[in-house]
């Protein structure tokens, strides 16, 4: 066994997996990764099950150091500078840390959450089948709280498998898609239109429980108190002040505000990775379209292993370069055969 030591880490970083399902009827929050696709991609790179437990690294930087042997890891999700002992590491690749070598992750540039998967996965004692941290309920393993410097994971010694990269489809751009309801009839047409036609920004006070949206005030037809009913990941509730809140993975299992719309499964991770202060819009789609997208998303997760490539094949990904440029980052090809976002502009 090796150890992976958390040498430094910012707030809002914790162990997450596919979530804690089956006990919402008892009020138990689901939790789990904010960006399931990124979690699955990182896990796939090191041969784990897609929703195995990994480190969800929040927007700030972090350093992890291998001890008592080599450790193989992979990173995916919000892009950031990464290096192992000074040598750059690209997003969406695996890398092996030799005993004593640190992996350093910079601040997220766009998005918030990057997933660090460890070969053999993080080990702990599952509660309701999950190691996911739910800090409010004191659940999660091996640490039932956000990670702190000095924490460590006992992990498998690196297998020596060749390093891989994963070719993910170009992320969807454009509006975050929603299905109206369950309580869209608590709003008149003008306010539904206001919700769908306005530009929104995610407030800096958002967290894993909910993303507060800044924009016009949405008015209710009959007031803001409804009898509590069940919530889902991506429920958009409108409290009394008219400022919608998109409920995320640490949401309460029930809530008493009208829910105007629900983010489609395929776009919840995209919403999770929308940076605070960045303008975006919603778009209503039909149930048929939403379910079609949900099935495609499932198919994408299932077929992630088909997207693995040897990381030493030098293929400059023009599309990725151009995306990165569109996103406003200066990009340069690196000698490692991958591309890497240059220093902050």
């Amino acid at each position: 066994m090796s150890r992976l030591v958390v040498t430094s880490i910012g707030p809002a970083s914790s162990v997450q997996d596919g979530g804690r399902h089956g006990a919402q009827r008892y009020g138990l929050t689901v939790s789990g990764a904010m960006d399931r696709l990124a979690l699955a991609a990182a896990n796939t790179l090191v041969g784990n099950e897609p929703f195995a437990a990994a480190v969800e690294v929040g927007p700030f930087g972090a350093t992890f150091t291998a001890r008592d042997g080599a450790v193989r890891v992979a990173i995916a999700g919000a892009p950031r500078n990464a290096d192992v002992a000074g040598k750059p590491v690209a997003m969406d690749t695996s890398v092996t840390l030799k005993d004593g070598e640190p992996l350093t992750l910079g601040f997220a540039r766009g998005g918030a959450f990057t997933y660090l998967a460890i070969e053999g996965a993080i080990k702990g004692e599952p509660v309701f089948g999950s190691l996911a941290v739910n800090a409010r309920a004191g659940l999660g393993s091996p640490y039932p709280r956000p990670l702190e410097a000095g924490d460590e994971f006992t992990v498998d010694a690196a297998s020596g498998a060749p390093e891989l990269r994963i070719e993910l489809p170009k992320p969807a751009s454009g509006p975050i898609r929603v299905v109206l309801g369950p309580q869209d009839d608590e709003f008149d047409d003008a306010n539904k239109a206001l919700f769908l036609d306005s530009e929104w920004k995610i407030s800096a006070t958002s967290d894993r429980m909910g993303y507060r949206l800044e924009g016009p005030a949405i008015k209710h037809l009959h007031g803001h108190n409804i009898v509590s009913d069940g919530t889902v990941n991506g429920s958009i509730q409108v409290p009394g002040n008219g400022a919608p809140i998109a409920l995320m993975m640490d949401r309460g299992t029930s809530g008493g505000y009208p829910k105007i719309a629900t983010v489609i499964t395929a776009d919840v991770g995209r919403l999770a990775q929308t940076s605070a202060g960045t303008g975006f819009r919603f778009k209503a789609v039909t149930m048929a379209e939403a379910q079609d997208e949900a099935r495609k998303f499932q198919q994408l997760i299932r077929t992630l292993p088909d997207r693995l490539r040897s990381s030493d094949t030098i293929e400059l990904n023009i599309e990725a370069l151009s995306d990165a440029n569109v996103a406003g980052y200066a990009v340069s090809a690196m000698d490692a055969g991958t591309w890497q976002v240059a220093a902050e502009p």
Partner: protein
Amino acid sequence: MAETLPPPRLLPSGDSAVTVEFSRTIDDAANERVLALDKALAAASIEGISETIPTYRSLLVHYDPGKIGFDALGEKLLAIAGQKLPPTTKARRWRIPVAYGGEHGIDLEDVAKALNTTPDDIVSRHVGGDYRVAMIGFTPGWSYLSGLDKSLHMSRRQSPRLFTPAGTISIGGVQAGIQCLAAPSGWHLLGRTPVRTYQLHRNPTFLTEPGDRVTFFAIDHKTFEELDRAAEAGEIVAERVDA
């Protein structure tokens, strides 16, 4: 129950869940139908349904759109909800000990004043109630009860408290509650129970189920301390009475 029941409304909750709504208000008959549908779905084991969450007036059904679509599932749900389902009255009953007033029920005196009566009278009305767990939500084990004596219905506090202790027994609006973990609350605190409706390493982890019957009985504060220690050690300390 009438022969033909009004069909519930199917409200889309995104692409992987549907809310089956029986009523817009708190209504015992609707809650009974929610719990009956919940039970019937568990027995029917419909391919694709992963989890159900009963609430006062609706059942949230989580499902996998890769296994069943909204329309096909909706038809099945309406068909089952339209049947005359067996009532869920043969539930188990929990007798829950409560230390009323004092430091454990800081609002008891104010509630008595507001309702123009004595704290003892409030306790006897609360103890006299025959409750049902209508739903569990908000935080683990938080059991929302229907069946509160009408004379105890009163609006919630103007400003919610940011902290109320674990085990709080409270009333708010037409509802009564058993709260397991410390949490913010705008309800009126009448007492505390040593009973943990949720305790991680105990079997069962969750004590109450939606549909369970509940009655309360008063204990003194010394008994509370004794039972609280026993509960901390993993004892259930509620009395189970099977109907």
